């Protein structure tokens, strides 16, 4: 048996690749080796054990690093972006082939021109197309800072523009209607004006409102467009060539209520309706605001309160939950926490579907 490890201290073991490799990813060979080594009853077995102990401690201490969170959506979006850049490279390579007979200097110019063309047509197409289509003079606000910027629109409405986002509107904004073009993300607070609908154009999605608070998220680089309602009512449509149709029909569109969100997939060009991630209690007259403190109150009353407070429909089997009661105070809990507590009490589960809550099962024996 090799004696290379005799006299090793725990720190020595922890600077040995074979030792660490075995601890992290043991193989049959490494297992057999260390097993045999330990069976020779080495005098420094204590150090070996301490090394194992320290290694575990270090890995536990680095657990936050090891489990750094990266959402699937970000991974997918970045991959999309990478592939977009790669396909751009293909174009420039083709250019190189086409112009091979030219002098070297011309090739450089061609490549630069090619990449500029690519940028114009590929990356900021939708927003750019809208803005260049505007006839009269227009105003553009670009947020190049790292903080949210508050933009005041001519009609008194406001937009909170997120970093790397831009918004523009024509000179005649507020004369016949109120149209803004968005690239990126902004949260709008719109002054009510029933005769002049407020329209946000963003990546083929049109959001139409009369007066309300909502967020549009439409980055050029993202595959989805999200519209998120905080108060009032909002309609969203797929943009059609014929502008006059907007607002006349709900065809290909959705009506959104507070705490609902529309997600428009740019790939499939389809909308889906979901709930916002963290639903918030609506602004209601004080008298209508539920207090969420219950003492032997029927479940159906509790659901009614939640529906009223959040404006979210809850569907459940009235028969099987008849006679179920709740004693709890839910005034500090979030929307999801409230539902979890209720479901636990009545042994049910819930799911979110099409902007509603569905309660499955449940009984109160």
């Amino acid at each position, binding site marked *: 048996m*090799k004696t*290379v*490890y005799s006299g090793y201290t*725990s*720190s020595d073991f*922890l*600077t040995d*690749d*074979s030792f*660490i*490799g075995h601890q*992290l*990813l043991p*193989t049959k*060979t*490494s297992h057999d*080796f*260390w097993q045999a*080594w330990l069976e020779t009853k080495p005098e420094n077995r204590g150090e070996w054990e*301490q090394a194992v*102990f*320290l*290694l575990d*401690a*270090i*890995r*536990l*201490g*680095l*657990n*936050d*690093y*090891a489990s*750094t969170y*990266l959402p699937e959506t*970000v*991974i997918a979006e*970045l*991959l999309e*972006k*990478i*592939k977009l*850049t*790669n396909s751009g*490279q293909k174009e420039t390579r083709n250019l190189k082939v086409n112009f091979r007979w030219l002098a070297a200097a011309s090739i450089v110019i061609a490549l630069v021109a090619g990449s500029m063309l690519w940028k114009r047509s590929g990356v900021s197409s939708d927003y750019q197309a809208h803005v260049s289509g505007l006839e009269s003079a227009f105003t553009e606000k670009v947020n190049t800072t*790292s903080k949210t910027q508050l933009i005041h629109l001519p009609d008194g409405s406001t937009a909170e523009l997120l970093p790397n986002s831009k918004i523009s509107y024509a000179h005649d904004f507020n004369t016949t209607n109120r149209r803004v073009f968005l690239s990126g993300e902004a949260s709008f607070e719109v002054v009510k004006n029933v005769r002049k609908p407020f329209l946000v154009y963003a990546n083929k999605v049109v959001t139409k409102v009369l007066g309300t608070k909502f967020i549009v998220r439409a980055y050029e680089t993202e595959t989805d467009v999200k519209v998120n309602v905080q108060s009032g009512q909002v309609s969203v449509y797929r943009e059609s060539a014929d502008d006059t149709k907007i607002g006349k029909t709900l065809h290909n569109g959705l009506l959104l209520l507070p705490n609902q969100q529309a997600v428009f997939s740019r790939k499939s060009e389809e909308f889906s309706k979901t709930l916002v991630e963290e639903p918030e209690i609506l602004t209601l007259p004080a008298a209508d605001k539920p207090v969420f403190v219950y003492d032997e109150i029927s479940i159906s009353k509790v659901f009614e309160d939640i529906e009223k407070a959040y404006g979210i429909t809850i569907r459940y089997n009235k028969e099987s939950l008849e006679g179920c009661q709740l004693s709890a105070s839910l005034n500090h809990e979030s929307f999801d926490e409230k539902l979890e507590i209720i479901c636990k009490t009545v042994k049910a589960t819930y799911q979110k579907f099409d902007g509603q809550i569905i309660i499955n099962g449940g009984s109160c024996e």
Partner: protein
Amino acid sequence: MKDVENSYPKEDQKLWLAFLSGDEESYTQLYKLYIRHMYRYGTSLVTTSDAFVLDCIHDVFTELWAKRSRLSVPDNVKYYLLKALKTRIMHLLGRKERSFKPLSDVDFEIFEPNDLEILEELDSANSRQERLKILIAQLPNRQQEALKLRFIENLNYTEIGNVLEVNTQSAKNLVFRAIEKLRGWIVLPFINFFYIFLA
């Protein structure tokens, strides 16, 4: 044991080979295999925005694609990607690894907090994991980086040396010093406690 070869995933190299011949699917798979490792290592290197790290990962992968006809198959794909990411990040930040300075200078612990301060901080932690995290955070940055690369990313000391732009022995020394320090904090109280407990 010394001569047992490090078993890098053979699967990686097959994917890499397919990617070099232009197979986009394999390229995508490599991306999906290592994006999380690259992201966590990248964000641990810089205090700027996550978006910056994502941009750097974008650059690494697009450059690989552009240069694929001229690349060879690395022994350890993960090491290759982490190293490429760090190079890209450092390049954009206009920084160089301070490889020309002797390690003792770079690693000089001027701001070493005293044990009392550490104890106070430890007091506020309410789990063993939290306490260990605090202790590791006391170590110089390069030692922490070496610990992450060795004990989480599972790079060997030669690879860590390359990433940190020092030789293999210096990479080991970094970890050795970190371990000695941690052992003083973790094991000795543990043993004392143990003896008192058993006595």
